[in-house]
């Protein structure tokens, strides 16, 4: 059973396919990535450290911008990233 999916080399996030616990180890093409917090099924894990304002890549394309610094192994979602498009309220 697949437990993690990374789409393109350029991606700095991957998708976990289990309800991940803290300190859960995933194997991604020979490399190890360890979750530093709980990550729900189908959600994204940071494959590297990111700074506020950095671009998040999935499918090899920009999908979001970091709204805070993100540690490697963190849960990446609406609490620490936002859309680049569709921000009509600003």
């Amino acid at each position, binding site marked *: 059973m697949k437990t993690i999916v990374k789409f393109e080399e350029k991606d700095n996030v991957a998708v976990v396919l289990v309800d991940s616990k803290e300190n859960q180890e995933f194997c991604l093409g020979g490399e190890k990535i360890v979750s530093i917090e709980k990550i729900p099924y189908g959600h994204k894990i940071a494959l590297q450290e990111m700074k506020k304002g950095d671009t998040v890549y999935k499918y090899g394309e920009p999908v979001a911008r970091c709204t805070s610094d993100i540690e490697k192994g963190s849960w990446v979602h*609406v609490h620490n990233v936002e*859309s680049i498009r569709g921000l009509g309220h600003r």
Partner: protein
Amino acid sequence: MNTWKGYKRADGAYGARNLVAVISTADNSNFIARRVSQAVKGTIPLCPCFGRGEIGEDMEQHIRTMAGMGSNPNVHSAVVVSLEPVIAEKIAEKIRQTGKEAAVFCIDECKDTIRCVEQAVRAAEKMVIQASMEERIETSMEHLVLGVECGGSDTTSGIVSNPALGYVADKLIDLGGTVIMSETTEWMGAESNLLGRAVSEAVGEKIVKAVRWYEDYIQSIGVDLNGFNPAPDNIKGGLSTIEEKALGSIKKGGSKAIEDVLSYSRRPKGKGLYLMDAPTGGVENTTGLSAAGCQLILFSTGKGNPMGNPVAPTVKVTGNARTASASAYNIDVDLSAVLTEERTADWAGEELYAKTVQYANGKMTSSEVLDEVEIAVSRRGFTV
């Protein structure tokens, strides 16, 4: 399986179903259409919201969409019920132009609800008996127009089910068929892929213009799209932004050249892959696809979405094993083995293609059996 079996219509199209449509021209006649349909087995009620008081392009779109569903190859013939005859005749006339029978019954002439229902029931009964004489005959895949749609998306949609829809879309187009993908907001952030596949600069400009219309609208009302699209269920399913959702969403359209961008409910003029500029809500979207002549819709879902179009059977496809198990009675095709058993994307695509042919040949979808009949005609302005 490079052929399927459908009901041949007078205009040369083939139906995947053999329905008698009971069309209400506007919300003020829906109760008549529902009663007629309840009384006559083999009919479907097509009951829109609004319709009365629409103006300009919205009125034209309303008529085109209701007539488009009535003209769909899956429809054998139609009864049109209405408060007044003018709009009803416009809809009926467009349906008759495809060679189908269309009969109009109005309160204006029948004078009361009961008499209108009675006369429409008598007409519908004859049409259903007539339709029952039709038989499926073998035809090529070039006579299939497939809609691809997704709803209740989660991350598995972009990994499993949308790529499988894309595989079927590519294969059908290789065999001479036609595919329509819509949901304009979900092209936002995926433009570089789509523009690279447009057959001409003019088509590329249409894609950019269609997305910009939504971005300008979002700006004009001052909202953050996030929370609306992606919707709360998409966010719960792991999708954080519209760009992330869009890049997973467009996989359902495959990889072929984009022939044109159609406005809502308009029919493609040729074969191949078409985009349709339409909002993303499943009911509103599939109404546009069925009115554009799609005989079948492949609907990819992650978290689950039980809706189904009454004219174009809507096949629910998931790559999420939890949804496939928990919502088994709303899911038609389970492709979750791609993740649970590490089956390949090609396996999923071939599996879905084989099922697509089965559903085109008459296998019933869950939403057909459960009698889901909701439609919603899109509009851009207000009624007056």
